[in-house]
């Protein structure tokens, strides 16, 4: 059995629409400093860095080479990944693999995006295939709206149920010092009367774009207990992709094949047979409210078509049977390169018992997922106990 890895320290910037006060390098440094400071560690402990962001979003090519000083300086390997919205989870998965393989003992994973410095709408079009997709794109919103329409048609989830997801997210965000959109008084009515962007998706159904960075320190099995009082053990990871073009999957949200594949792989690896019962908390990558409802089904939290019922019954609220996104989720904070790493970090904070006001009491087993491109998916299980 290969040695395990655990997350021993984490750091996040406070996500906002625009960080006018810092450069990208300073913003990354903030997250890294907070991560190391959490355990009073020196940067010299770090053997390697894995970092992810969307280069075209800020218009900087190979930015991690330019900003290597902010990452802790030259003199160690810097691995760069770019897998779209899921890159933060890809970073976490690579950190885990590198440590497990024995190549490095302590690996720092970083995800960031300073989207305010780019043209967000123009940037999203660069995700589309130039030949087949770009000329007929309608941005992320149009994309999600069409997917949501298929799901709504099949499942019968209502706008009210979607609105409840939006309310849950922005209220939970009030308990998370790092979250971007905090709305303590948000109501279902407010969501339902927010501007329609592209049916059925309204303004408050969508995630924001945020500036920010996140960092997580992974350590080898023998080191981890010495670096953190209660490490978050990486019990299982999985990655799965879908087909190539946006229109390939006929029932994009109703049948999220890559999410099913990735979650089933990690469930099997740790012996989870009933995720709703066996998981204590889930931090999933939900770009829009309808997506979260569909993800409940595709992660196996409920039967097909019952995503709406789950939110109606309060199962996924902070005090519910399986809290989903107690951090406020992507609906509250979305700096693309960081977001999936934030899911992993928030899941880690839960099983470490360090999630502060949004702590799920007694959380010991957490699921984190990432979503990018055409439903490219990562799933990780983090546990309080060494597996």
């Amino acid at each position: 059995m290969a040695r395990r890895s655990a997350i021993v320290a984490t750091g996040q910037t406070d996500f906002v629409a625009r960080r006018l006060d810092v450069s990208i390098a300073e913003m990354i440094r903030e997250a890294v400093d907070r991560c190391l400071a959490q355990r009073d560690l020196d940067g010299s402990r770090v053997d390697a860095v894995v970092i992810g962001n969307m280069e075209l979003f800020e218009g900087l090519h190979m930015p991690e080479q330019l900003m290597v000083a902010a990452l802790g300086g030259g003199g160690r390997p810097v691995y760069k990944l770019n897998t779209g919205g899921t890159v933060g989870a890809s970073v976490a998965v690579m950190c885990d693999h590198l440590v497990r393989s024995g190549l490095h003992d302590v690996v720092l994973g970083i995800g960031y995006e300073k989207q305010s410095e780019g043209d967000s709408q123009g940037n999203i079009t660069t995700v589309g295939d130039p030949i087949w997709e770009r000329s007929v794109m309608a941005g992320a919103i149009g994309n999600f709206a069409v997917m949501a329409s298929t799901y709504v048609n099949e499942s019968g989830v209502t706008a009210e149920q979607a609105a409840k997801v939006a309310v849950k997210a922005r209220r939970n965000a009030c308990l998370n010092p790092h979250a971007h959109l905090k709305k303590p008084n948000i109501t279902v009515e407010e969501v339902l009367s927010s501007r329609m962007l592209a049916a059925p998706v309204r303004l408050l159904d969508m995630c924001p774009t945020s500036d920010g960075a996140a960092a997580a320190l992974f350590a080898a099995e023998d080191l981890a207990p010495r670096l953190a009082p209660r490490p978050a053990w990486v019990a299982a990871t999985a990655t799965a992709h879908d087909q190539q073009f946006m229109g390939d999957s006929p029932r994009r949200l109703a049948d999220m094949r890559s999410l099913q594949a990735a979650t089933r792989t990690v469930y099997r690896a740790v012996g989870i047979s009933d995720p709703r019962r066996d998981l204590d908390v889930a931090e999933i990558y939900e770009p829009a409210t309808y997506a979260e409802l569909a993800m409940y089904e595709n992660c196996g939290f409920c039967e097909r078509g019952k995503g709406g019922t789950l939110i109606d019954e309060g199962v996924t609220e902070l005090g519910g049977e399986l809290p989903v996104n107690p951090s406020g989720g992507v609906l509250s904070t979305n700096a693309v390169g960081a977001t999936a790493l934030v899911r992993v970090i928030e899941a880690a904070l839960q099983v470490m018992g360090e999630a502060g006001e949004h702590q799920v009491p007694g959380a010991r087993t957490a699921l984190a997922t990432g979503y990018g491109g055409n439903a490219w998916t990562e799933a990780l299980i983090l546990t309080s106990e060494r597996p």
Partner: protein
Amino acid sequence: MDHRVAVIGVGLSAHARRRRDVDYAELALEAIDAALADAGIGLPDVEHAVTASMDFLDGRTIASMSVAEVVGSYCKPESRVVGDGIGALLYAWARMRTGAYRLGLVVAHAKESQGRPHIISRAAFDPFTEQLLDPDEEVVAGFAAQRFAIASGRSAADAAAQVVRARAAGRRHPALEDLPEVTVDDVLSSPLLAAPLRELDRAPLTDGACALVVAVDDVVRSLGADPVWIAGSAVDTDAYWLDRDLARVDALERARDRAVALAGWDDPRADVVEVGAAYGYQVLQFAPVLGVDPDSPACNPSGGRLAGTPAVVAGLDAVAECVQQLRGRAGSRQVPGARRALAHGWHGLGAQTHAVAALEAAA
């Protein structure tokens, strides 16, 4: 615990100045089909893939989306590194040492002809203090060539001789498009690129893809494959180009040291060394660090990047050449009796990040 991991299939697309006939998926598939055939497996057998590509080169966010299906990633893991292809090999190797995956594809693609190199590499500079000076990677290479010449005493003619040598070698490589024969004088009298570099000092812009099939030990046995073992691999990153002496190659030394240590080689020298060199002077600078005489037949038998391989793909092409050499299948390029090889690649302005793979022939 540790599985040994071998390369059991090698494939290169036809490399050319411009591959106008294919999109990225088709280009990569040329290499993938060849590698799968070499390994004797089909695409559905592949359990995971690691790819290498760059968004700025492709003009596409998540550039690897273009090759998602041809690398067999439907409901399977694919991860994508941004950097030289040897970084992708390293990650695939790391994931397989633990047995997490047992059979995989490593694929790199790049089309240097489709974007504007000057604009692309300018975007790698500091936007506040450098981009307004309109620099590109050639400028940094010019500085580096100058620093190297001063520090080493090697001449421009010595560097030009490497270009001549590389083109001759490349004409023996079936996948590379032939480059016109040149003399040292031709190189030295070609137009200035960024002093002291001349246009012919530089590798030509190229479109191409490379694919490797990698397998753990027991899969190698059950397939009856022709393996070359990945004995060790390492990546290391130096300071940004402005913050270091370009005559030094600290990151390459560290990457070499770690790769060789992981391989357990007491003697760091190999029988074949494929040096990642986009300019003639880089062969002179990097080859000795990798333990080989730049003029020896053991150095860049494929011709390397100067013979026409693109950034990102170059390192994986270097691994592919080493694999064929160690299998005794390098044809007219064969270095006799090769048992150990080193493959090298880099990326970043002034070769900031280096990647090295140490390879061993089957017993």
